[in-house]
């Protein structure tokens, strides 16, 4: 019996069972480990982060009625200028926080070929006009019936601000209240891009 077993073990040329086992283990463990690492890499991502698919794409065309009545404001009439499109609402607290920065930037750039447009978002006309009166600033304010322009711009909420270069390309986008520094950096960059500075 023991001799027979000895013969079986001693078969000449048989592969080493330990190396075969190691290969089998590697075949199983390497893909499992790679898959686990792939899934684990997702843990480091910020779930509240919003994508920015409209960056460097042509700004959507719009033709929106002025708040309080009057002529329409069209994107076509602003072609060749840097346009700051700011989505806002009277009920929006961060909009109030960013308003002084918008005012300062407007005063700085209004004579330099930069246009500001405030697009009122999900609001009543009365509340929006009262807000505009209270906060100040004389850049054009428009309404957005059905939020179609907001959806065209991929707006997640207010405030949200886009800087459009003279060639009509969106060059910057900020979700949430903008700072004065962000505005001058992005507007200067857009002016350089258009050669208007």
């Amino acid at each position, binding site marked *: *019996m023991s001799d*027979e077993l000895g013969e079986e073990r001693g078969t000449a040329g048989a592969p080493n069972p330990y190396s075969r086992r190691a290969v*089998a283990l590697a*075949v*199983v463990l390497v*893909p*499992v480990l790679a*898959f686990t690492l*792939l*899934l684990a890499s997702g843990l480091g991502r910020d779930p*509240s982060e*919003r*994508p*920015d*698919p*409209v960056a460097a794409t042509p700004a959507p065309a719009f033709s929106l009625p002025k708040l309080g009545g009057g002529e329409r404001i069209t994107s076509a009439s602003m072609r060749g200028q840097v346009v700051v499109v700011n989505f806002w609402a009277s009920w929006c607290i961060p909009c109030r926080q960013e308003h002084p920065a918008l005012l300062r930037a407007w005063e700085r750039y209004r004579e330099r070929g930069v246009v500001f447009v405030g697009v009122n978002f*999900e609001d009543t006309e009365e509340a929006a006009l009262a807000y505009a009166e209270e906060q100040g600033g004389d850049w054009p304010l428009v309404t957005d019936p*059905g*939020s*179609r322009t*907001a*959806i*065209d*711009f*991929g*707006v*997640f*909420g207010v405030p949200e601000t886009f800087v459009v270069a003279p060639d009509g390309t969106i060059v910057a986008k900020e979700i949430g209240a903008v700072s004065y520094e962000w505005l001058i950096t992005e507007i200067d960059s857009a002016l350089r891009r258009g050669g208007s500075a």
Partner: protein
Amino acid sequence: MLLAAAVAVVAIAVVVVAPGDPAPTTIRDRAAAVASGLRCPVCANLSVADSPSALAGEMRREIERRLRAGQTDEAVRAYFVDRYGRWVLLVPEGSGLNLLPLLFPLAALAVGGVSWWALVRRRRPTTTSEPSTRLTEADRARLDRELEGNRR
């Protein structure tokens, strides 16, 4: 292994069973189906169909307007993906790297099954009568004696 099998069953259910639902035919049903597959930009955790936010309401109207204008469901979805990125899709597209979480458990199940089959096949004795023929005369005489002793 059991976990892989369970995940595989769920993956098969998602891939095979879910598309078996009857396709909506009316514009309103199609709009509801598209809206239920889009994430509300404001709420993030609710679909456009379920969200009470004003923007989701406008998106529902925009979906219906585009469908009435003759656009396909896919074209409407593509419009929202263009504006909000693939983030806006509640169910990831079944292509590219997205297939990996679905296919990996199936592959693991297949590899595990083949390994188990190979292991069982290797350990199975070749014939059942062979061991008895290997008994020497001395062993057989000893076995007979032991059995005889037990019977007493």
